[in-house]
């Protein structure tokens, strides 16, 4: 199983996809682990399903929308993010060490993990490929304004850029600015406009 690696899928003459070498190797390892009684394949299914259907940036968006509409909740969130996020329910009994950093008219926050790909899974789901890329991990700390420009966001010199390099088991969530023109929107409507990228700090939230 120690062959070469292919990122792409090959195609046969009928146009049907042939599994990549990596896919075959993963399947072989899973079969071996199941045969040895080390892994229950139904538990693997459950983990895959959780990431595909339950855990994702909608969770973080609910936190942001509640912070925008409930000042007392926002105060608790900034004081003890782990407890305030657990209030909403989807963290269950788990309490990762969460920190929320707030964007303001004079401060913009950006989250990275230069050493690996630490990311607040429970509120944002699995990280996108760009977050895990060498380009992002290398540049976010030395040239955050250039990285933001790659996302189409240009910030003036009067705005301080704070980069949070996730080097420990603390996990950072950006509280983006509530956009102008959303004063009449309720919490659910606001949650629907909060994007994953805005909670990592590579974008602002736009009014609908």
């Amino acid at each position, binding site marked *: *199983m*120690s062959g070469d690696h292919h*990122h792409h899928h090959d195609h046969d003459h009928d146009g049907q996809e042939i599994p*990549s070498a*990596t*896919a075959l190797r*993963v*399947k072989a*390892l*899973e*079969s*071996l682990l199941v*045969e*040895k*009684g080390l*892994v*229950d394949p*139904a*538990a693997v*299914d459950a*983990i*895959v399903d*959780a*990431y*595909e259907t339950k*855990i*994702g940036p909608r969770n973080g968006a609910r936190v942001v929308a509640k912070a925008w509409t409930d000042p007392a909740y926002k105060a608790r969130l900034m004081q003890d993010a782990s407890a305030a996020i657990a209030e909403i329910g989807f963290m269950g009994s*788990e309490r*990762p*060490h969460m920190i929320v950093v707030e964007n303001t008219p004079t401060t913009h926050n950006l989250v990275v993990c*230069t*050493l*690996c790909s630490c990311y607040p899974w*429970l509120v944002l789901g*699995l990280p*996108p490929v*760009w977050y*895990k890329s*060498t*380009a992002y*991990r*290398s*540049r976010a*700390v*030395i040239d955050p304004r250039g990285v933001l420009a*790659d996302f189409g966001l240009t910030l003036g*010199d009067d*705005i*301080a*850029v704070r*980069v*949070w*390099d*996730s*080097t*420990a*088991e*603390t996990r950072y969530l950006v509280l983006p600015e509530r956009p102008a023109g959303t004063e009449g929107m309720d919490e659910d409507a606001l949650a629907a406009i909060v994007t994953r*990228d805005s909670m990592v700090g*590579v974008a602002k939230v736009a009014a609908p």
Partner: protein
Amino acid sequence: MNGVHDLGGMHGFGPVRPETNEPVFHAPWEGRVIGIRRLMGAWLGNNIDAGRHAIERLPPADYLRFSYYEKWFQSLIHQLVDSGKIAPEELATGRKAPDAPVATPPVTVATVGAYIAPTGSYQRDTGANPRYAPGATVRARNIHPEGHTRLPRYVRGHVGTIERDHGAHVLPDTHAHGAGEAPETLYTVRFTARELWGEARNEGDAVYLDLWESYLDPA
């Protein structure tokens, strides 16, 4: 270790290229790798630091060439063989060795909830007094351990300010090597962009890192 994983501040990797409407997984095997890795954590001590160090120890060219899930897959194989959970001949044949025992999976659908995401607290109540108070000036130590560390090269030797005290946390430098949790006070430390990258940087810009007490000296 001064590995290729320690990417902060390096040049040459090109622009960041976000993908429109990115799927959760780009191929089904990626999800299987996450699931297998999470579940095998139960056999490997659920040691997130050892898992990270296994990834860092991939050959540098492989580290840069592999996708995220390929890194996870290959480093997991190394961990499984090194720990004796699978034998090299089993890896080669893909079949259980005839004389190898059959275990009972410790994690089932009923108990998988706790294994979905890497959670749990790494904070420990040691009662130790923190050496630094918020506002204190510190210098990141100029150390180059060959083992696992979470002190990136780009801050070593640089002066920063203690921003926040997170209490005592498990020290990755020992924990990754099975040498105990050795909890120490963890601090968020603020380094100005000018301190790290020179005077051409914007005056108000800064980088914040979470650093353990033994990574720091008074300055």
